[in-house]
């Protein structure tokens, strides 16, 4: 290795160095690029998306799956019963397969041309299956036989089925007319809460570990001589908030599109508003927490320290998540106004509608204020702690450090 001096082109001194505009933006771009090149992150995002689409697809398939049954019959009576069973079957279908005699009908079952054979017995009917008769088909045919036989018996007794049934009708009356959509709201609410939980922790940990990485490897000393140190914090917070926003938005959009392709939800219109607000609340709530994560990273001295010192913020995220899911009535209303907790609480309240706009805006303003205050406090501690080598620090110790 020989380093020669002659090849060196002279860069005009002082032209560029030290003149970086918006250093936080350079930091933000790096944060995003590093994450986008992180294979684990890309894979986990893809897997989550696949699971969401898969879950919607599977439930659609289960709800819309139909079966066609073929039943071998030898006479018109049996054929009539099969037709009645077909009417009872709803989504499924039951078709009769005419055979000249019971032997041929049995042979059809044996050859698996028919799922079962319905044969007249001395008294009543015999249902022939190969190794078994499917429960659904069994039930359908039994009901149809009962109906058929009872109708004939009624006729013999000089009355009709309608007369026999008179007064036995039970009608269901639901007091809460939105029963179906209430369940759906609940499911969507839980989805919101878990999206928040996942993203808040994944990207929060990303911030903490990336701060710690710079502290541990002393890169921060070089960075600190190049740009004001709080710019590093801003860059990280903005970069990871943007990533978290992009990921959440991706999940929500893909989820809504997948739902829209199915018949599960007649109309996703009601979801759009709440989902939009959820994203807005998520960004602000995450922003508020981001500064806390950065401080936790700067207080740690090794990765293991993060396991212990992230406890309180994890707790806060859990409270927000499960508060949003389980709180109802007044509790939910309260939760929807507590900064950070409202990130989940308010959008869930909004799913059921009836939240005045001013309440949403007040809650959002509370979150913004919390974000501002936490970033301000966070940058004070971060600046001090991140240049402090040695052992892990407590918040109190960090406050006492000199700048």
């Amino acid at each position, binding site marked *: *290795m*020989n*380093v*020669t*001096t002659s*090849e*060196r082109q002279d*860069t005009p*001194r*002082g032209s*560029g*160095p*030290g*003149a*970086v505009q918006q*250093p936080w933006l*350079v*930091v933000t771009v*790096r944060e995003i690029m*590093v994450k986008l090149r992180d294979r684990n992150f890309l894979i986990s995002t893809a897997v989550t998306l696949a699971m969401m689409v898969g879950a919607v697809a599977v439930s659609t398939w289960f709800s819309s799956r139909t079966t066609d049954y073929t039943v071998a019959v030898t006479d018109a009576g049996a054929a009539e019963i099969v037709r009645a069973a077909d009417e009872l079957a709803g989504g499924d279908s039951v078709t009769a397969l005419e055979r000249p005699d019971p032997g041929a009908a049995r042979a059809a079952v044996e050859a698996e041309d028919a799922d079962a054979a319905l044969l007249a017995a001395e008294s009543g009917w015999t249902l022939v299956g190969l190794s078994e008769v499917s429960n659904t088909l069994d039930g359908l045919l039994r009901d149809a036989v009962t109906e058929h036989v009872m109708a004939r018996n009624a006729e013999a007794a000089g009355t009709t089925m309608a007369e026999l049934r008179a007064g036995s009708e039970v009608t269901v009356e639901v007091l809460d007319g939105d029963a179906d959509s209430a369940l759906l709201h609940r499911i969507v609410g839980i989805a919101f809460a878990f999206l928040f939980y996942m993203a808040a922790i994944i990207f929060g940990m990303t911030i903490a570990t990336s701060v710690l*990485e*710079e502290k541990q*490897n*002393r*890169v*921060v*000393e*070089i*960075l*600190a*001589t*190049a*740009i*004001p140190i709080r710019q590093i914090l801003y860059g990280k917070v903005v970069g990871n908030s943007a990533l978290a926003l992009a990921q959440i938005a991706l999940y929500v959009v893909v989820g809504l599109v997948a739902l829209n392709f199915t018949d599960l939800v007649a109309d996703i219109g009601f979801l759009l508003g709440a989902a939009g607000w959820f994203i807005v609340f998520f960004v602000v709530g995450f922003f508020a927490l981001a500064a806390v994560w950065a401080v936790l990273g700067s207080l740690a001295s090794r990765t293991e320290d993060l396991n212990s010192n992230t406890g309180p913020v994890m707790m806060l995220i859990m409270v927000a998540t499960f508060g949003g899911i389980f709180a109802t009535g007044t509790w939910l209303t309260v939760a929807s106004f507590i900064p950070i907790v409202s990130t989940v609480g308010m959008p869930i309240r909004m799913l059921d509608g009836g939240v005045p706009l001013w309440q949403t805006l007040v809650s959002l303003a509370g979150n913004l204020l919390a974000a501002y205050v936490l970033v301000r406090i966070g940058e004070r501690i971060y600046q001090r702690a991140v*240049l402090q*080598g040695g052992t892990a620090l407590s918040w109190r110790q960090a406050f006492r450090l*000199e*700048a």
Partner: protein
Amino acid sequence: MPAASSAPALEVLGLTRRFGDVTAVDDVSFVVEPGRLTGFIGGNGAGKTTTMRMIMGILAIHGGEVRWGGRPITRADRATFGYMPEERGLYPKQQVLDQLAYLGQLRGMTRRDATAEATRMLEQFGLGDRLKDKLEALSLGNQQRVQVVASLLHSPSALILDEPFSGLDPVAVDSMVDLLRERTREGVPVLFSSHQLDLIDRICDSMIILAGGKVRAAGTAEDLRAAAPRHYRITAGHDAGWVREEPGVDVVDVAGATAVVGFDDEPTRERVVARAAERGLAEFTPIVPSLSEIYREAVR
């Protein structure tokens, strides 16, 4: 050495820093002249790193000040400096070229310029085929080279290097010295710390000896040598033990016919030389003190 006279000098005036009750750096003053390679010498805990961190503004100053070009240093000034921290600082899991480009950008270079310059310097350092490797995949010596590039990338106006030579093999040390010389020729003041006294003796234009947080000696090697007590080697007769009897002679060592001595004054020297001549003078040479002798003397 054609140092540009207009280039600014880095001055440290009465710099002081305490950690609890311990004063790590105590009223330290020195000047790093433009275009000079200035060695910062001192044992462990002498206060070198603390002083350098205060110069770079990453440690609060408890007393005194740092001046750049005759006025108090600003954060913008420091942003134009090149700095290599004692415990190296780079991203282990990021590609070499990629992170150098990032550091260049933070110093105000465009990404394109930073990438081009980093590529050129890495190639000079024989790392042209490792540009896309993660830093942690490189040997420690090569990581050190990347670290050097990180501090030189943005054509710094001054260089503050904490132990830049530790961990480098002799060839890499020479390349590093060439790189630093390249900068000093342009009038950049360079301050670097080292334990390797022979290396400092060989390459430094001037040096600062620090011990116990205080400056014990400072100046060019010649200045320090001139200031150091002068010793001579005398070989005469069979046994040099007679020098012990002479008044005004500081006997450092006697071995057979040879003695190493110092003289209180010029007449004493002349008298002893005359005595030695009577006994059959074979050798009388002034001893040029090595830097390590000067250092040991200074920190004693």
